[in-house]
């Protein structure tokens, strides 16, 4: 049981952090685009 727990824990944390990073990228991308549009206007 402990043997299975470790990889489940690893992939669980891995998924949360990886999608967190993807969301961070997306969020920053949206912000950067808004700011650059505002600058252009």
């Amino acid at each position: 049981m402990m043997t299975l727990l470790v990889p489940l824990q690893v992939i669980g944390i891995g998924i949360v952090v990886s999608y967190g990073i993807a969301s961070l990228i997306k969020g920053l991308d949206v912000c950067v685009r808004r700011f650059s549009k505002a600058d252009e206007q």
Partner: protein
Amino acid sequence: MNFLNLFQGIGTMFHQEPSIVILRIVLIFFGGLLVYLGKKGTLEPLIMIPMGIGMIAVNAGMLFLSGGHIGNLIIDPLLSSTDDLMKYMQINFLQPVYTLTFSNGLIACLVFMGVGVMCDIGYVIANPFVSITIALFGEMGTILTYPIARLMGLSSGAAAATSIIGGADGPMVLFASLKLAPAYFVPISIVAYLYLSLTYGGYPFLIKFLVPKSIRGNNVTHRKTRHDVSSGQKLFFAVAICAVLCLLFPVGAPLFLSFFLGIAIRESGIVKYVNLIQEVFLYGATFFLGLMLGVLCDAKTLMNPIVLKLLVLGMLALLLSGIGGLLGGYFVYFIKHRNFNPTIGIAGVSCVPSTAKVAQREVAKINRSAFILDYALGANICGVITTAILTAVYISVLG
């Protein structure tokens, strides 16, 4: 003068156990085979040529040392006491390279810095969720190999370090085995690099087996390209992600720092640093990596029964990751209403840039006008990031 004392490489063969002698001879020929396959391009020549020659030299060049011991004047990876280390650093010519760059992970970080300089993070910024999803599927071997390795009797640290071979990232395997299973650092690294150089030749067969011709030539339409992202934005993203990952996983900070420093230097446009890292650090580190892996392959080290298990597990990890990556490709293919090419999934296995090139090459064989390299490189770079994250989590959980 005794013939066997004069030519000690041959003489030592008469004083060692027959099994070691046989393995020495096999490894000498195997080293030759690696050089041949490297030259032919079947295996990665940058690693295999120095590795093959190193393997030949270390197994042929055995001699009688003081106290009747048999060893070589190249390297002793098993030294642990400070006195011995200081003594042998002045005797074995590659001992300083091993002690000061290999066993502390510096060489892995230098390679990682070079990988960072090669990576255009714009591909990830253009499609972050698609790239991360494929990369996570491409970690199937990193996750599923662990319980199998434990069932085969490996310790938790060794099982985790072996599982990370599934991430197909050499520096990461070096780093993980140093942190999690230092006793098995040498065999795990050797097995990892032997197999990693095979991915270029093996994965096309997996693609042909799992992706039917009818969809293998699919092009992706309505794409957002990396050209929409400026170098300033890329630099900003690299700094932000590096800070977040170092905050979350300080154990992986050396790897995160090296990788994102490479990206930051590339995006800053400091040409002299880019050239220094790409031409000197990366090639220098890769050369010594190959040579060190070769000289670490002496018969005595490889007589360890764990090597056989590692050979099986390493292949399994890479196979599972390849299958996982392609499943990820199919997942995105269905999510995007078939406006995707599942072959891109293989690039989720983070062997930068080999698997991305494999994906593009296999697609171009079916449809010459199909261009999927941008998506493949995005998944490829995310593969590096997810492998680094999973490595850091394994170290945090088990460390």
